[in-house]
């Protein structure tokens, strides 16, 4: 199976400091769930940025499939003075999503996340802001979804909605790369779990591969989070 994103002997360091990420070999495949676990400061976020193409490696190479689209949700969503629909519409225009399709997609996401609040995002609660963060990441139905601790601030209901969305994305063939402090959730949907320690990948747990594992994962998520 051809990798959507492949990191070969990748290292990253800033100025003259110690490497944040070093000698990382990792591949992200279509339809795969990849969980990245590690302590605070272990290099998880930098590794996600390398995968999302936000930061360039200081050493090694990152190869991407042609025409690859990526969605990215940072750990801390920045406060913006737009309403949620305006913000999503603005990003959709940057993506050049046709207007009717964009309007449909925004409405679909607003319904899915049950976000029907008026007013600017700066007035939102933490959970509502996190919903907007996730909505912008999945807006363009990306091939690879890169999520930095996406469950932070979400209540149980919203986590279930998000689990349903993740399962749907995986079934549609998107790859999901995610960090998080909820091991039971990560273990549930991830086909592979990578542990990063001091910038190095030290452990690799394989749950299996292929459609059977994906289906099993999706079923588990649905049962665990009460999703039909």
């Amino acid at each position, binding site marked *: 199976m051809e990798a959507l994103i492949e990191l070969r002997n990748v290292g990253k360091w*800033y100025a003259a400091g110690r490497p944040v990420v070093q000698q990382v070999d990792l591949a992200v495949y279509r339809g795969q769930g990849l969980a990245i676990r590690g302590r605070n400061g272990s290099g998880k976020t930098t590794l996600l*940025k390398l995968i*999302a*193409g*936000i*930061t*360039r490696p200081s050493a090694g190479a990152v190869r991407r499939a042609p025409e690859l689209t*990526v*969605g*990215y949700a*940072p*750990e*801390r*969503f*920045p406060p*913006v003075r737009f309403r949620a629909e305006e913000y999503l519409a603005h*990003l959709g225009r*940057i*993506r050049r999503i046709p207007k009717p399709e964009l309007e449909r997609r925004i409405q679909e996401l607003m319904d899915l996340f049950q976000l029907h609040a008026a007013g600017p995002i700066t007035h939102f609660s933490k959970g509502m802001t996190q919903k907007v963060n996730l909505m*912008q990441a999945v807006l*363009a139905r990306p091939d690879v979804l890169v999520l930095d601790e996406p469950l932070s601030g979400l209540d149980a209901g919203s986590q279930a909605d998000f689990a349903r969305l993740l399962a749907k994305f995986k079934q549609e063939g998107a790859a999901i790369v995610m960090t998080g402090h909820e091991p039971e959730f990560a273990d549930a949907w991830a086909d592979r779990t990578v542990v990063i320690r001091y910038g190095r990948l030290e452990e690799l747990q394989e749950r299996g591969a292929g459609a059977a594992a994906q289906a099993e994962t999706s079923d588990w998520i649905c049962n665990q989070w009460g999703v039909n």
Partner: protein
Amino acid sequence: MLLYTARPNPVMGSYAASSVLLYFVSAWIGTGFCGAIGEAQEHIAAVHTGSVRKYLIGKTMAVFACGLLLSLAALIYPVAAGSFDERVRAGEWLTALLAHVELAVLGGLAALILSQPVIRKGSLTAAMLLLVLILSIARDGILKEIGGGFAPLFIPLPPVAPVVDRLINPDADLSMQNAAVWIWPLVYGGVLYVLYLRLAEKKM
């Protein structure tokens, strides 16, 4: 508008003043663009744009577009308001346009390259930018005081002083030196732009 509260005014002298003002205003706009967008929002925008480079180019183009619009406003307003003591000739207008655009671009670029994420310590950026802007404008006056031997120290600074000087003392001849006054800021701006893109990409 404040520049033209008294009238009539000399054409090129007034344009020299407005171009210096625009240099500072463009730097302020550039700083505003960098400060208004947090790091996480920059990351989101870069992903949606398709690449960090595309995002950075878009951001700089927005700063330049503001500078261009303000340049046109600075050129047209005094003519429309009848603030000059004589009619503006086409050559003067073109010279003033080039000077305004060059200073707007250099001011914006100076702000971008002396801002985060290129320079991580936010407290230093404003002071460094102000110092660069003042030194680059006052170059000739400072060199007169401390001696021409220090001129090489000013080479890394944006070459705006000769442009402003040429507006105040318009020279009709088209010698090589005269052309260099206008071409060098473009070359300098191009090099600074490439440097900014590389540094900003590396620091992301």
